[in-house]
């Protein structure tokens, strides 16, 4: 990647790392929340649904500010984590946290749709054959929703790559630490003569976004064919 300057390369690498960890860490939680919303009836279900979707409808700046209040050095959770030596404010981990939260609704929606498409009668059949709920989930539900899980993960990854508002509010725009791809584009546009670098990053963003979409389509179709048993 000789045509990229060091600052641009650094932003790209950071964005990939942030998005990768944001997706990986939220995925198990996303599956659990999607399963709970799709299958369980419990008090507070609508509240949970609302909370999950909140980052999708709130202005990203608001989400970022709320994160800063909660996870900042003076925030309640920030203080608690600091006791264990974990600081997320103004670190790449904070960027991953912001990206994970912003991408969470998209992930949950995709997985929830695929869980709702699984006939609960198949899960009942598993239970009558002696499988516990957890085992039925691992051997029946999870393999059948795999296309949805993969689609949800790729969508979340792409969304995390593009997250800007909450990230810049929460962890600022520190080159090499919290300057992700969109933040770098923004920074380059603030300085005279930065257009060329910004344009290169824009092209990369488009390529990654398109690639993610095509990959999710391709993998989803392959897995769907396998799961449908043809």
């Amino acid at each position, binding site marked *: 990647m000789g045509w990229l300057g060091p600052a641009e390369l650094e932003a790209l690498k950071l964005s990939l790392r942030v998005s990768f960890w944001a997706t990986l860490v939220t995925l198990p939680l996303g599956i659990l929340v999607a399963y709970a919303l799709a299958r369980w009836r419990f008090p507070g279900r609508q509240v949970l649904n609302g909370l999950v979707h909140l980052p999708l409808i709130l202005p990203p700046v608001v989400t970022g500010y709320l994160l800063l209040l909660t996870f900042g050095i003076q925030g309640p959770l920030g203080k608690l984590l600091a006791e264990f030596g974990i600081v997320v404010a103004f670190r790449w981990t904070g960027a991953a946290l912001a990206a994970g939260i912003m991408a969470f609704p998209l992930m949950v929606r995709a997985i929830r749709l695929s869980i709702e498409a699984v006939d609960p*009668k198949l899960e009942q059949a598993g*239970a009558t*054959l*002696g*499988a516990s709920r957890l*085992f039925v989930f691992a051997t029946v539900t999870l393999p059948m929703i795999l296309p949805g899980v993969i689609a949800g993960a790729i969508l979340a990854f792409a969304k995390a790559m593009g997250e800007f508002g909450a990230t810049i509010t929460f962890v600022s725009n520190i080159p090499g630490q919290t300057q992700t791809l969109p933040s770098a584009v923004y920074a380059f546009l603030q300085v005279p003569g930065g257009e060329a670098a910004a344009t290169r990053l824009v092209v990369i963003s488009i390529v990654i976004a398109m690639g993610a979409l095509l990959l999710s389509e391709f993998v989803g179709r392959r897995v769907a064919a396998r799961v449908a048993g*043809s």
Partner: protein
Amino acid sequence: MSLSVRLQHDLNDLRLDLSFDAPPGVTVLFGRSGSGKTTIVNAVAGLLKPMAGRVSIDGWDLFDTAQGLWLPPHKRRLGYIFQEGRLFPHLTVRQNLFYGTWFAPKGARREDPDKVIEMLGIGQLLNRRPAGLSGGEKQRVAIGRALLASPRLILADEPLAALDDARKAEILPYFERLRDEVSVPILYVTHSAAEVARLATSVVALQDGQVLRHGPASEVLADPSVAPAGVRAVGAVLQVRVVRHHLDGLTELDAGGTPLYLPRIPHQVAEELRIRIPAQEVILSSKPPEGLSALNVLQGAVDTIRAGEGPGAIVSVKTPAGTVLARVTRRSVEALGLQPGKPCYAVIKTVALAPQDVGGHLGGH
């Protein structure tokens, strides 16, 4: 083994309140749709929690609301054969078959997988996926999957209802083999009199959530009041033995000393069979019939006469071959002077003994 069921449950308009004990063999829950059959099976399986009741297998409680005992479905050790098969689409036939074996306790009595696969004729399908199977093949795999889970009881909820007649004829013999070759008791739901006649060791006839009648298949089906599918489905079951195959394409049967003829059947000489004779295929005569084309005449005496709401009546006739039901008009009952005890002749058209109503030998009797 015996299954004991006591249930009370309200479901929409249906009030279920019943109890029965099922002896070993095939116990058929027989009744029209909405009579509570599937609710009973789902309560036994643990897929539905009834308001009150107790179900036990050989004294081992699956649930008892009085004690607050409720085993979850996966701890009940049952094999449930569903109407729609419910095979796992993402697994091969082999993986489907062996799914339940992972959970069977080590000491459990196991069926030999090779024997089950051979019995069901699914050896060539093992590496295929359910999407590529016919309806009949799917149901055979579903039977094998339930059986290989080492169940203490097999539940079958209208396992043939989703199949066409040809597929039904393909699967029924496998249930007969299950009854005769495997010692696991079966609770079988159907609204088809033909399936009852072929499979049932005992029948629990249900109506509006109550047990209408409970007993051996031949007795329950000979009771004209048990007609879940309407009067057209009324018919008696006779126990017969194959005597010989005649050159003109007929097979001679022995029914309690009386010969019966029907179009050639594939069963071997000396084999014990059950045949079902639909009541509407039986004509009654007060004198020995002469000059008739019908070959089968059973001599006997009227047992009961039950008049329906319309012009028809169901007359049950005791013969040496067993009880035969005839559907005649009330006018004929009067014209012939039929009344309980009166000798009469039941004339059965040969063609009425259709092969699909002929069952395999009776297990456990």
